[in-house]
């Protein structure tokens, strides 16, 4: 470093000093102190004192209000009572705190001395210290011999790089490997479509044109990992005029008389696609507004999702209930690296 006075305030090279150069205004120094009312008028001083005391007294009242709310407002099972208690406890605390806070600040601003004081900044560290420190560090390094003994240095480096790895590997058992679970849901051939959350089965005749059902597979409510299964298996069931459906080749018999079932889990980041616009036959995800068009097999027509909602092939069993013909033909929900 060529600049020997590097970083030391007070030396002209390193410190920004407005007002020094010839074509700048000279610093006029601190403006004269303006006395406050309480500095000049003993009555104003007394008044300020009483105001501070009054504020502290308000704090006392606030604390009492808190106790009143706590002991005199018994909670029953109405939310109105809870609100009243919360209001009294909260306002009590607020007054207790604000009384003290505003009182102290008022005291400081009106009665404590308000002369601005000037203090000099000091160097963060004297230059000599830095030089000494550099020498000490170098001496330590020399004595340790770490520079002269590359064998020691390199083996230590290797060991130190490897040693933390167990601390990472040990977290391996935080969870199981994904395996195949993201590709399977509870749906299978013959599994009945049932209402969410009651679990009652749905007849094809229950599904009128324009209606939408939130659907779970039969037996979900009794499943061992209910929420995990539900997070994959929820389905929206809607009926359109069969003319309006435009099934692609291979999907002709996935619908039953205009009734279609689509995964309710958004292909964007997994929110439930819960909104159905009857008139336009659009499904809308309330989280990020991805919009899917039922008439085009839930193709994305707006928003951040990139893939259509997976369709669940359905049919009707002997008793007239809607059942799945198979599981989904692709993984539901948000994309993942291994999805393919």
């Amino acid at each position, binding site marked *: 470093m060529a600049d020997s006075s590097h*970083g030391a*305030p*007070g030396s002209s090279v390193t*410190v*920004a000093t*407005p*007002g020094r150069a010839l*074509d700048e*205004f000279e610093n*006029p120094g*601190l*403006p004269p102190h303006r006395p406050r009312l309480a500095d000049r008028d003993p009555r104003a001083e007394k008044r300020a004192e009483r105001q501070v005391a009054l504020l502290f007294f308000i704090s006392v009242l606030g604390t009492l209000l808190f106790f009143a709310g*706590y002991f005199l407002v018994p*909670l029953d*099972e109405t*939310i109105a009572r809870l609100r009243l208690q*919360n*209001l009294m*406890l909260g*306002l009590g605390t*607020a007054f207790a*705190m*604000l009384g*003290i*806070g505003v009182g*102290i*600040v008022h*005291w400081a*601003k009106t009665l*404590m001395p308000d002369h*601005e*004081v*000037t*203090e000099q*900044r000091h160097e*963060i560290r004297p230059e000599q210290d830095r030089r000494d420190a550099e020498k000490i560090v170098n001496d330590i390094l020399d004595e340790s011999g770490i520079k002269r003994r590359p064998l020691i240095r390199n083996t230590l480096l290797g060991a130190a790089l490897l040693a933390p790895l167990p601390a990472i590997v040990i977290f391996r058992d*935080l*969870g199981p*490997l994904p395996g195949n*679970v993201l590709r399977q849901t509870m749906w299978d051939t013959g599994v009945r479509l049932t209402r969410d*959350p009651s679990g009652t089965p749905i007849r094809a005749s229950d599904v009128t044109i324009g209606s939408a059902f939130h659907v779970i597979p039969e037996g979900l409510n009794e499943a061992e990992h209910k*929420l*995990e299964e*539900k*997070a994959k298996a929820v389905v929206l069931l809607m009926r359109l005029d069969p003319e309006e459906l435009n099934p692609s080749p291979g999907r002709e018999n996935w619908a039953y008389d205009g009734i279609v079932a689509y995964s309710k889990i958004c292909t*964007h*980041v*997994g*929110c439930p696609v*819960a*909104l159905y616009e009857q008139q336009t036959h659009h499904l809308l995800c*309330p989280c990020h*507004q*991805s919009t899917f068009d039922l008439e085009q097999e839930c193709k994305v027509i707006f928003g*951040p999702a990139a893939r259509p909602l997976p369709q669940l092939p359905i049919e009707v069993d002997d008793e007239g209930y809607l059942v799945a013909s198979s599981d989904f033909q692709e993984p539901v929900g*948000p*994309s*993942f*690296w291994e999805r*393919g």
Partner: protein
Amino acid sequence: MSSSTAAQPYAPKTRTGKVTDYVDSRVGGSGIVKEFGRKIFPDHWTFMFGEVALYTFVILLLTGTFLTFFYDPSMAETHYEGSYLPLRGVEMSVAYASSLDISFDVRGGLLMRQIHHWSALLFVASVAVHMLRVFFTGAFRRPREFNWVVGCTLLILSLAAGFTGYSLPDDLLSGNGLRIIDGVMKAIPVVGTYLSFFLFGGEFPGTMIIGRLYVLHILLIPAVILLLIGIHLFMVVLHKHSQFPGPGRTNTNVVGYPVGPVYAAKAGGFFFIVFGVLAAISAAFTINPIWNYGPYDPSPVSAGTQPDWYIGWVDGALRLMPGTLGDNFDFEFLLPFPWGVNTLSLNVLIPALVPAMIVFTAMFAWPWVEAWVTKDKREHHLLDRPRNAPTRTAIGVAGVTFYCVMWAAASSDLIATHFMVSLNDVTYWLRFLVIFGPILAFMASRRISLALQRKDREIALHGRETGRIVRLPHGEFIEVHEPVDDYKRYKLTAFESPEVTVPKPDENGKISLLDKAHGRVSRFFFEDRVAPVTPKELEASHGDHHGEVAGAKDRESIASH
């Protein structure tokens, strides 16, 4: 003083003296009192935001500790039996049930929950505003660069603290938030699925996540925050606080009030004020009424839901990104590899990572970027008024605009319903604004800064407009200007206005590419500049009056009245 006390042993006479002597002769401490008792702190209302952040953190620790005594971070299934009738008998997690109990069956529990939540919102807000203050006034410059980095880390940690806490009640709303996190994680190439399975302990939602977030929320994150706050404040003491330029203030002094009694009283009193205001808000305004949402269930969701404000910008970015372009292009790519096909979801990855990376990288690197541009290696203890650093201010405003457009996008559905406009149009407009808004904001705010600087020059040279119109004997109307006093004028002129550095050729007559780039950036930063008024100019402006047309003399004499 030390020489006189060395002669005879110190015998305290006052009661305070006896107490301090007792303590000091056992554990020391008079040194600390000497160092801090009368330490000078500069005062300015913008220095308050950091204090708010500190105090809200203390309030978070206090209320949070209370909540831990009643909250149970278990995802085991239970049936609710508490006082809130609409949910009685409903199946839910123990975590959600205990959160309901805190709200309905622990007296003051609801208040504690609400103060905790409001404080968390205010904590992140005050950290952010504090950082904006530091940025726009140039307080990050040498020697405070490391403290700026500590502050940036604290901002990220405050977001992490907020998000981990937000999910703990295990209600429907926060569960959907976790679902989004899960979806975003799964989009990460190669390791995403594994990360998700490790975080949730298996498939989403699993039974582990709440307990894990709880440990992060009440132990790890607050401990690191506390440590960094310690380092942050230590460095403030080490550097002494920066101050705005003004009469009596220089780069080598500190002007302000001593810690004892004024500053301590104001700052200490302010803690109670912050607490009081938060208590008042929590008394009157419900936050996060988890009982309305119900327990987490992957199927239902309500429209118009919002994350806590500080997560909004990432959620908004997710909303703004189009998943498909036209009929035949989408942002999800299938990559053929020898072992099979892998999926790359850029429609999720880009909005989830890129804006945050831009914002945080720019934030962390800014002190060094600016030092490179200005080639200024000096220590700065005097702050800039934002207008006096027009390009920095404009870049900051552009960043804020970028952030705010994404934040607004998190409410795109509510904007559409409240203003009765098409949701799709709102999204299209915001997509436009997220790209061009920052550019427009940059241009506008730089112009405004320069205009304000010119206004300052005007005032320094010709004084304040009094609004008094005077008719001169020959019929001319003038407005009387009142010259500013020396103090005010110094305040208006005490700043530096760097000039463009032109790259110089080396001994071979060549200019390196880096120097060329630096020259261009320097021109971008400082080409448009307003210089502070100099005494010479002030002199000349008075001279001008005398040289003007007839009547100037009268004008002078009126102005001086």
